[in-house]
């Protein structure tokens, strides 16, 4: 791909993005406020397959519009959130889920932070243990100290 082409593509995409928010506004005949909230929540969790990282709720791309209508219809048919998500995943793959499901493939994602936290906590504990055993003997005499304030040693 040449630079010129990429530039053109980017301009096109950005122009497209600019159009988005006008057409993402689409009043739908919700039965009640709770249904409207459910729709908003659901479409915010789903990713537009076409766009560069936008939710179905915010995107204007034609496919996003079609999918929003489809979701609305499925809601009217009484399908649950999970069924709607399954429907979309069957057609567009897990890509459309901003909330990655917990599968062996995403263990690293969901448990990684916990492991890092545990590892870091262990390191912190070791550091605290090492320090609290000290009695000030390791003080470096040449270290410059700021004037302290009223015993607060601020």
């Amino acid at each position: 791909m040449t630079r010129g082409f990429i530039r053109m593509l980017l301009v096109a995409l950005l122009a497209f993005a600019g159009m988005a928010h006008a057409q993402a506004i689409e009043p739908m005949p919700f039965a009640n406020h709770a249904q409207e909230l459910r729709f908003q929540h659901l479409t915010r969790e789903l990713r537009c397959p076409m766009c560069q990282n936008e939710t179905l709720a915010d995107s204007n791309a034609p496919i996003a519009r079609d999918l929003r209508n489809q979701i609305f219809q499925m809601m009217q048919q009484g399908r649950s959130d999970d069924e709607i998500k399954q429907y979309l995943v069957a057609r567009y793959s897990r890509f459309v889920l901003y909330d990655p499901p917990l599968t062996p493939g995403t263990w690293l994602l969901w448990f990684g932070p916990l492991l890092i936290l545990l590892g870091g906590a262990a390191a912190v504990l070791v550091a605290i243990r090492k320090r609290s055993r000290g009695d000030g003997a390791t003080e470096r005499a040449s270290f410059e100290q700021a004037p302290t304030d009223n015993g607060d040693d601020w």
Partner: protein
Amino acid sequence: MNRLLPFFGFMLLVLLFGFGIWWNTQHDPNAIPTPLLNKPAPAFNLPKLYEPAQKVSKADLLGKPYLLNVFASWCVECGVEHPVLQAAGPTLGVQLVGYNYKDAPDDAKRWLAEHGNPYGLLIADEPGNTAIDFGVYGAPESFLIDAKGVIRYKHIGPITPEVLANELKPAIAAMAHEAAP
């Protein structure tokens, strides 16, 4: 030793990024791999573009493989792809079925008159609902569907001569190979 941990961790990250840059040169970052690969194509029942009273269903097309090409008059890339299809159409070995996606019939007909018509069969999906079942999210997209109605290959984006030679033709050949005993 654990002083070197940050360094090694960082190097792992560099490897990942190097891979990322390389991967981007090989793949279209916007293409989503289809979950329908090697699964039966969704059932459909769509009107022909030129004879809207007649409908074509999936069952009608069983028995022979075909390349389903999703296109539209509003799609810029389709214009890029079209000459390739026109040139390659007769030699593909499978029928070329045009799938007009979210297009006003008049616009589509005008576009085809202008750019040529390589399709053996033309069906129209103006509302775009059936396309959702195929996992279509833009145009052009192409599906290679075998005689039993199973999707064997999907390409997102225009079919360039490279894609034709390196991916589509081998896929068609592989399909033909297993059909012949």
